[in-house]
């Protein structure tokens, strides 16, 4: 959890991604602007499902693929962190 005033959720979210998806990488090595899916980290739709659950349980934000910005939200760590910051309920 970030403290109030912390500039960004990115480090926490990077850790959550690595833990949830059991990636064998250092969370710090995830480039904030690099794509998470396809190239980049090469995640797929099942990873998206796993990740959505973890985000919902940790931050109380339920992702929907009907969100118009869903493609943007998952486009990078930074975009995801911004969306979670905006919609989080815990």
């Amino acid at each position: 959890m970030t403290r109030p005033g912390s500039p960004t959720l990115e480090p926490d979210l990077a850790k959550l991604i690595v833990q949830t998806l059991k990636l064998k990488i250092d969370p710090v090595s995830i480039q904030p602007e690099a794509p998470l899916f396809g190239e980049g980290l090469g995640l797929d739709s099942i990873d998206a499902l796993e990740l959505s659950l973890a985000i919902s349980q940790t931050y109380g934000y339920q992702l929907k693929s009907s969100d118009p910005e869903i493609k943007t939200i998952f486009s990078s760590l930074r975009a995801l962190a911004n969306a979670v910051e905006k919609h989080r309920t815990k």
Partner: protein
Amino acid sequence: MHDTPLIGPYNSDDAVAWQRGQTRTARQFLADVTALAESLPDRPTVLNLADNRYAFLVGFAAAILRGQLTLLPQRRAPEALRRLAGDYPGSYVLTDHDDRIEGLDAVPIVSTGGAAPWPKSIPLVPLNQVVAIAFTSGSTGHPVPNKKTWGALTGVARATGARLGIKGGDRIGVVATVPHQHMFGLEASVMLPLMHGVAMYAGRPLFPADIGNVLADIAGRWMLITTPLHLRACVAERMHVPAGGLILSATAPLGRTLAQEAERVFQSEVHEIFGFAEAGSVAERRTVDGDRWTPLEGVCVVQDRDSCTVRAWYLPEPVPVPDRVTVESGGAFFLYGREAEQVNVAGHRVSLGDLNQTLLRIDGVQDGIFFLPDEDAGLVTRLMAFVVAPGKTSEEIQRALRAHLDPVFLPRPLVCVPSLPRNATGKLPREAVQELARQWVGEDGHGV
């Protein structure tokens, strides 16, 4: 062999498919199929890569009317598709999106938008016409083709519907999280609604919130075609949907605890299908009622001295069951995991599938898998287990397992994890479990 109609008992203005407030009626569907069939190139085989379930169905039906075989590839990677097309010279691609596979001709699937008059007669298809080829992994690494006749696809669809109490023309909306190019997806999410004259959702919801929204918007009863993986996500989100729907799960064994939780969260019955690509759907059970599988109407599971086969009027010859089975006198049967999953632990033979089934029956276990690491020189290799059981400790699960297993088969260690790395069809590739084991041993294995 006689011919049967391309579609079930739809009235001309009944919905065949819907998405985002738009529907395609049976009349429009037949117009779309006829128009596409007329414009298809004269080729023997087609790779139907449509993402949209309705577009896939239009392409599939048009290919059938033109006597063309639809190939159902296991994998979507361009190289795999090119290899498959190479095995079937003259293949082309039907698609509803812009991605092109280099080296393969592509034909777009388009809706005419209009509606032709309802035809005097529905097109007929011979029951023995081969309409699709599903591929399975062979021991050689080359995909093994399994021919599917119109009779097999429609037979399974009708038998599944009959078992679940679905009648022609019922007001049901069928929603699926599984891909339609997969055998179970084709049978349950495309052929089942088509043969019963009910509507299918053209999209493929992924997140629990998407599934919930689609189900909540259905005017009649809903039916969800899915996998244990998606059910687990929905249960974790405690989603709310209209009660009294119907859930059909397949592709991986569903634990009884998860089935109970899903029945409670969805306030609906959860049924499970046992099948495999070579035979299609074989049997059904309501998971909370027990481990016994009842074959679908017209399907027989026969135990010979040392093998077990599936027989059905639409299968040209008996198909061997890849799992260990015991058949009761009435024809119902029990599964004990795949034959090929036999492993040897310190000289004792056991089926990993059998162990996995035991694990899944333990109270509180949502998902789990046993794994035998590659042998270390000079040491007895012990089984490991990875278990998803929120609120339970690994000691509690070990204690419960001890009641069912010889000590030699108890996992060392039993690792509680938040989830298992299942793939898009809910299966758990050995490589993925291997990777999980490697990570676990690498990171935390020293303290055991």
